[in-house]
């Protein structure tokens, strides 16, 4: 090992550089990213310190929150649930699955039957052992006809679930090569008896046990002394504090009152990185900000008009001004390089006033104002983004205007109702899940009202396709269909931008979700 490499290892060991920088600089010295990545993990892990109180300041908590995983819909309950609870499998950086409650996952040859072997010797916080029956009961609670779960739409393709010994068998109505990825969904936390009796008890089999929960304020959790995995759960106590105000959260991390925070405002990220003791962490994920046209509503039922609007948006400008450069441009389909089997050969769409004007003319639109409905709640900076869109569209001669809506009730009254509005998607671990959530013609959340029989066929074929080459080609064709005929305008993918104290060790950014996909409190430790 060269001296330079040794220096880097020393820096990594003392937590002075993050994984991204370590891998990048090792790469410059000729080491491959995967080797450097695992090296960083080993070096950092060896330094793990036990004890202390680790606090996360998270945005998006309300006093109406509950510990019921079925109802988690914002970052605070998500973070809390991921700390006390555990799913069958977890999504690791790089899009691979790690085994948690399930020890082993196998399928039959055509991916219609999946077997999950449940890890032996795990116990819930109430002392009961974790059994295959608990797992089945949990999945049933989220999928049956009476379910009130955010995961209901995801797992309704499971036709039959059985528990036998230590094995859970899921039989599917149709082949799905991605089924294990669905089991990583944050709603599907394994609860004793499926959590049917008391869904909000906060009893799971994770590394921390809920001690105190005040909704919208904080949750205090203590180390689970019987937890099976020694590479997790270093702090004695962890706390999730609900701090909704950006300024207060930022002040809290610079003052050291919290150790990590969600949603650093991109506008101040650079300044905050200069503050003493604060490190900014970024992860390029699948989340994206969008403008949604309903393909069934005039004037958006005309593909020329949709194309005109897609060509009339300045994507680079949006990434620069709305995301402060912390993101990447979108290409009017909901997939980016964060997904496995992404086709990076699809040409990037860019602003073209002349072509947009051409399509607009071809659409035969009468020139009346085209109304874009937007509220600040649609995504951070949504109103500013809409204003930029209006300016560039007007440049191309398209009469786009904004109608400002209140935050309150936006998701029930405007989104999925109005013909043209702003929204966001958090992304999904695999392409199939993203497409089947919102672009399949029969999907519950098909917010662009996009209907294309060939697209649906391709999706179902790809879902059961085990050959990655064929599958990639199918996904590429779907992306092109959506890009050229769909109702989605996707100008940008937003990075997770988060802050942590320098004394927090073990941080590995995970694009799948905020704060290491909710596992930051479980996987990190406090130096000294």
């Amino acid at each position, binding site marked *: 090992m060269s001296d330079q490499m040794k220096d880097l290892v020393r820096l990594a060991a003392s937590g002075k550089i993050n994984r991204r920088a370590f891998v990048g600089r090792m790469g410059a010295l000729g080491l491959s990213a995967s080797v450097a990545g695992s090296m960083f993990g080993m070096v950092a892990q060896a330094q793990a310190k036990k004890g202390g109180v680790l606090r996360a300041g998270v945005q998006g908590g309300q006093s109406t929150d509950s510990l019921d995983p079925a109802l988690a819909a914002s970052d605070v309950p998500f973070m809390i649930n991921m700390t006390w609870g555990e799913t069958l499998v977890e999504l690791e950086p790089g899009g691979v699955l790690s085994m948690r409650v399930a020890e082993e996952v196998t399928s039959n040859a055509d991916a219609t039957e999946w077997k999950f072997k449940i890890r032996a010797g795990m116990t819930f916080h109430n002392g009961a052992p974790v059994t295959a029956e608990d797992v089945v009961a949990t999945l049933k609670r989220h999928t049956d006809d009476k379910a*009130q*779960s955010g995961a*209901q739409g995801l797992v309704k393709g499971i036709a039959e679930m059985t528990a036998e010994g230590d094995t859970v068998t899921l039989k599917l109505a149709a082949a799905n090569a991605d089924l294990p990825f669905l089991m990583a969904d944050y709603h599907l936390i394994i609860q004793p008896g499926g959590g049917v009796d008391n869904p909000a008890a906060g009893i799971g089999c994770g590394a921390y046990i809920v001690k105190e929960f005040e909704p919208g*304020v904080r949750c205090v959790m203590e180390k689970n002394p019987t937890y099976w995995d020694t590479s997790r759960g270093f702090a004695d106590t962890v706390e999730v504090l609900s701090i909704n105000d950006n300024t207060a959260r930022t002040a809290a991390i610079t003052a050291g009152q919290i150790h990590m925070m969600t949603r650093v405002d991109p506008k101040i990220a650079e300044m905050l990185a200069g503050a003493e003791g604060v490190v900014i962490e970024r992860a390029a994920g699948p989340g994206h900000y969008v403008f949604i046209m309903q393909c069934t509503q005039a004037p958006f039922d005309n593909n020329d008009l949709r194309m005109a609007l897609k060509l009339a948006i300045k994507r680079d400008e949006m990434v620069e001004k709305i995301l402060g450069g912390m993101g990447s441009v979108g290409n009017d389909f909901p997939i980016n390089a964060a997904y496995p089997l992404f086709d990076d050969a699809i040409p990037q769409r860019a602003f073209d006033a002349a072509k947009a004007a051409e399509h607009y003319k071809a659409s035969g639109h009468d020139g009346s104002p085209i109304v874009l409905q937007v509220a600040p709640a649609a995504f951070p900076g949504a109103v500013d983004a809409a204003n930029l869109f209006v300016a560039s569209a007007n440049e191309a001669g398209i009469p786009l205007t904004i109608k400002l809506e209140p935050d309150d*009730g936006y998701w*029930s009254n405007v989104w999925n109702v109005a013909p043209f509005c702003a929204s966001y998607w958090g992304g999904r671990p695999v392409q199939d899940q993203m497409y089947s959530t919102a672009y399949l013609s029969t999907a519950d959340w098909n917010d662009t009202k996009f209907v294309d029989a060939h697209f649906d066929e391709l999706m179902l074929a790809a879902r059961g396709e085990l050959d990655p080459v064929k599958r990639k080609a199918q996904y590429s064709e779907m992306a092109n269909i959506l890009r050229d005929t769909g109702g989605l305008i996707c100008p940008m993918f937003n990075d997770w931008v988060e802050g942590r104290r320098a004394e927090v060790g073990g941080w590995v950014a995970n694009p799948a979700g905020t704060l290491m996909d909710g596992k930051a409190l479980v996987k990190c430790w406090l130096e000294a």
Partner: protein
Amino acid sequence: MHPLIILVVQRIALGLILLLAVSVLIFLGVEALPGDTAQQILGQGATPETLANMRESLGLNEPALTRYFSWLGHALTGDFGKALTNKMDIAQAIGQRLGNTLFLAACAGVIAVPFAIGLGLLAARHNGRWPDKLISGVTLATISLPEFVAAYFVIYLLTQVIPILQPVSMVFPGMTFLERLHAVALPVIVLVMVVLAHMMRMTRAAILNVMQSPYIETAELKGLSPMQVIWRHALPNAVAPIVSVVVINLAYLVVGVVVVEVVFSYNALGQYLVDHVSKRDLPVVQAVGLIFAAVYIGLNIFADVVGIVANPRLRHPK
């Protein structure tokens, strides 16, 4: 019976009727908001099936009138029920948060009220000269600043430049009194800045008003010092308007400080109410709304009574 007692009883009875009217208004208001609890809980993740299931289990399919009277029946027997959203016991949650609200309001009030009245007296004593102008200028500046700007300013000053306080003010059961005081120091500073001017200016105006009276001249001719004149002769006769302004500000400190609560993540009633309004959680909105209304009505009855006791003409009506 003493006419004063009759009056108080009348006012309280009127107050109870008002509370009932308030509960009807709150109910109608929440009903009129677009979307229902099920939609607000499930948000972007709602599907028609989950919505129907949740409406069924929350009893949202009952007619509005049935829901109101069922709530009223329980409330009259002291049972506020459980929150629709997270099934937590409302009385228990409110108890803790009301305590936090009153603690913050009391801390701010204990500092702001004597301070404002003292400054008002001082300004009246030096009417038109520099102390008066200075006091008026500074307090008007602090009241003109929006609360969140004042809050950000003190956060910057006292947690970043001079790091002696903490920006997040949450309080928890088990904290000692001193720990609580330390936690709420920043919001208290902001609230004092906000309520100071109103009370101080009313004190000053009320005193100056009385200072024109002949008996003040008499007191001056007796040879009393200016501060003695104000303290012994002017203040007792100006107490009614001062008390009513003080009471309005105290009521504000209890019911109107949600912006400050949000900025400092202080877990009190205002934030609790706003969260539940956004989720259309009717039982909670009713309970908190009634508490706020009761505080307003109660404090106003108190101010009226003080006004009457302080005024002989009202105390002994012909």
